[in-house]
């Protein structure tokens, strides 16, 4: 559907984004984005979703509203994002300035046999976000686009919605912890200290 050549590798793209994360709080959408973030290096303020498809962006919203002085980044996939498209309207209305949602878009359902997704047929997620009222939207096709996007994701006043187009090449599984109570406890302890266990 596109005249663009897709060349970005998902693992390299995610590692590049996270290299400049600072103290950002991170939520990952289930499947490949969770493996990508784990491959870039584990961190107590990474909250990995292993399920709850469609929840990543709105979970980031709740976290961003609760922590207005911290940057919140959601890294998810195109299939996960389209399962909860209402989030584009919900987040646009709530408009947290500290939230960025970055969709790693391979135009495929990677966990289920690489079936084509909606973006493969031309559905324009940043365009939908812009139409919903997100003040900053972007689509990165090239390495230069990605370099320009990274400081926007980590620094601009949002909410920011960005797609990074990546190849459908498979990447090896890198699995983070999957026990939800471990993930929540270490996340809250790193963020809230003693308060985490009140």
């Amino acid at each position, binding site marked *: 559907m596109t005249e663009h050549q897709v060349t970005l590798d998902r693992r390299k793209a995610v590692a590049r984004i996270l290299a400049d994360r600072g103290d950002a*709080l991170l*939520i990952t959408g289930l499947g490949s984005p969770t493996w990508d973030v784990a491959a870039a290096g584990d961190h107590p303020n990474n*909250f990995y*979703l*292993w*399920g*709850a*498809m*469609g*929840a*990543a962006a*709105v*979970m*980031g*919203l*709740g*976290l*961003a*509203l*609760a*922590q207005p002085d911290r940057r919140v980044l959601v890294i998810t996939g195109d299939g996960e994002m389209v399962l*909860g498209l*209402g*989030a584009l*309207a*919900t987040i646009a*209305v*709530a408009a947290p300035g500290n939230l960025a949602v970055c969709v790693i878009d391979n135009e495929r359902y990677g966990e289920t046999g690489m079936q084509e997704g909606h973006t493969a047929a031309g559905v324009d997620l940043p365009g939908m976000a812009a139409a919903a009222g997100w003040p900053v939207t972007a689509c990165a096709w090239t390495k230069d686009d990605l370099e320009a996007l990274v400081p926007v994701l980590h620094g601009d006043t949002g909410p920011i919605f960005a797609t990074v187009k990546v190849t459908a090449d498979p990447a090896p599984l890198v699995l983070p912890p999957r*026990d*939800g*109570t471990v*993930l*929540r406890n270490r*996340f*809250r302890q790193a*963020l*809230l200290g003693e*308060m985490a266990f009140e």
Partner: protein
Amino acid sequence: MKGDGTQPAWPDEIFGVLKEAAVEQVCYVPDAGHKVLIERSIADNEITTVRLTTEEEGVAVLSGAWLGGQRGALLMQSSGVGNCINLMGLVQECRFPLLMLVTMRGEWGEFNPWQTTMGQGAQAALEAVGVIVHRVDDAALAAETVQAAARLAFLSYRAVAVLIGQRVIGFKEFAK
């Protein structure tokens, strides 16, 4: 508005309970039964309200809120319960507190048959995915039931739904 004979007191009493429980985020898909609670939440400077497109978003929003140190409440009508079911996996696996206040349709004196399926199935659907259900069928018990539910949710880290019966809310009139 309390006890003046025109407006029931229970919505204001529930709002007072949410404030006492330190609820700072209120997510909702509107229902007539939640009108007062929604309006008072919006008017409160210490509460952030989130207007949802669908109820399951609220399950995720409040999971994120609690991860970030804030308590919340999710308001919906019984027809929204079914929308939330898969995301209960998030809440249960992570032992996130979740306080849901559900105003019931499809039961006491319902006029609209399309409300009946989810209204009658709401409690069983919630319990099938491990949500603890408290019912309120007497307006005088609404506030203390929500208070107990809030304690169970936030202090014992559980998903708890309070179903506010249609008998409490009253018939929706479809007068021509």
